């Protein structure tokens, strides 16, 4: 990537060099099935890391391990050098399917994290309104989620996760349920939000273009049992334009790694099913 070095610009706010999240030899079994073989990585403070991989490779599982919803079978997972033992308000989560609370208005969904902390209602609303404004939801504070479009629901979910001020924002395929137009719009917005929020972000995605457009680093996972097969740094300033040739080059590079991996997985799968068929006949 010698081409890029000439163009390195100081990253906005500078992704720090202190490791925020460290994974050491993470292994995860579901029953007897090995889902994660060996994952080791380090995610720095204020870094935006995208994790990409073939479907079913366990990228969401890795995110849930960081979130504390699931436990690793082996290995060590640290946040601020402290082992992760369960979910906590230092990590905010946004799911593909939004998971809003339908009985709460937009404003109450967004303030919930602060309500739970016991923050005064007035202060909670003030802090919520900031993120409601930045996510473009002003005017919808009193609407119930069922009346919102998919893109707006996702904005509520993002505002909800940012309002209680987590150090790390975990995004689980945040644009997966959105149509293309809404998605492109949200990607632009997320870049600006990130500049504003200045947090560590870990995003799971299966879209290479999303990953290269948003992230400082893209980790590519292998198919199951998963390992990290590539760690690509994208040293381009934000906001990024998908037509930028350098961005295209990264996109092609990662796509190539990914399709080689998918090809390998598919041929293995075919061999296995052919073997099973021969055994059957």
């Amino acid at each position, binding site marked *: 990537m010698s081409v890029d070095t000439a163009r390195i610009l100081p990253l906005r706010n500078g992704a720090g060099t202190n490791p925020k999240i460290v994974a050491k030899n993470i292994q995860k079994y579901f029953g007897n099935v090995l889902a994660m073989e060996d994952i080791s990585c380090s995610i720095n403070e204020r870094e935006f890391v995208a994790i990409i991989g073939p479907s079913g490779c366990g990228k969401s599982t890795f995110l849930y391990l960081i*979130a*504390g*919803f699931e436990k690793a079978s082996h290995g060590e997972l640290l946040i601020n050098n402290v082992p992760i033992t*369960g*979910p*906590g*308000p230092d*990590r*905010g*989560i946004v*799911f593909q*399917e939004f*998971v809003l*609370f*339908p*009985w*709460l208005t937009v404003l109450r969904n967004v303030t*919930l*994290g602060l*309500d*739970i*902390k016991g923050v005064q209602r007035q202060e909670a609303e003030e802090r919520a309104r900031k993120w409601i404004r930045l996510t473009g939801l002003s005017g919808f504070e009193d609407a*119930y*989620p*069922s*009346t*919102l479009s998919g893109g707006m629901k996702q904005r509520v979910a993002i505002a*909800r996760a940012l309002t*209680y001020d*987590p150090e790390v924002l975990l995004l689980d395929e945040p644009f997966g349920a959105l149509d293309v137009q809404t998605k492109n719009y949200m990607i632009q917005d997320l870049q600006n939000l990130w500049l504003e929020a200045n947090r560590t972000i870990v995003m799971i995605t299966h879209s290479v273009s999303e990953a290269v457009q948003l992230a400082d680093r893209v980790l590519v996972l292998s198919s199951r049992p998963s390992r990290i097969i590539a760690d690509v740094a994208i040293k381009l300033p934000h906001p990024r334009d998908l037509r930028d040739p350098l961005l295209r080059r990264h996109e092609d590079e990662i796509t190539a790694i990914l399709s080689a991996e998918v090809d390998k997985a598919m041929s293995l799968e075919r061999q296995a099913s052919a073997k099973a068929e021969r055994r059957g006949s």
Partner: protein
Amino acid sequence: MSVETSDVRLERYDLSTAPFGAMVGIGRAALIVVPLILWELCSRFGLINGFLFPPPSMILYKLWVQSGPIGNPPYAIWWHVAYSMLRLLSGITLAVGIGTLIGVALGMSRRARLVFQPIISILMPVPTLAWTPVLLLLIGIDNRTTILVVFLAAVFEMIYIVASGIEMMNVKMLWVAQSMGATRWQIFWRVIIPGIFPYLITGTRLGTGYAWRALIAAEMLAASSYGLGFMIYDASEYMNMDVIYGGVMLIAVLGYVLENVLIGKIEAATTEKWGVLNER
């Protein structure tokens, strides 16, 4: 769990007359009024036995007299209704509270479910009235007996529906609350209870229906002075057909009010406003 209905609103239970206007309203009223008029005429002109089928006007008159100061005892109808309602609402409240707690416990723990499912499945179909003789021997003719009958009639439905509501709930809702640092107590009140609200409403509605039927029957066996069931039973001893029919009419009207108007109001203020569908 509840399905959001932003795009397609499935108004399965909406009986508003809007699309057909007055026609439906007239049809509905006619189905109640016309048979009553026929009954009235047949009874008055001796086409049917006037003792077994006293004219509706006489029945209503009897109800009117019995709810006034010259009733026997004075204001009798009000007392009967008040006692029945007291027993019903106490029993239902107990059933909703205890049923919700047990249902949540069963829903949250797979092990508890495996242990308790069979016993609940066995007890659920036992007609509540079958317990009444036992309760009568244990407690005697007392409000507690009828309240317990109401409780038993409603509680199994509550447990069952709440447990399945929890099972249907998106576990990610709990995750979101956990990652906000919510305590178990906060998760219970802020996520689980509102999350299963559509099921709570359905359970309460079904449970109230069962309980209402069980109550009237239990009052015939286990009430000594007041209650609509007692009123009908007592009237049958004296062959007061008008009181019997009056009691039946009151039961029908009160049951309708409870199930549709009262619970309907709660529904409109909660799940309908939220745009989630009630599970039935």
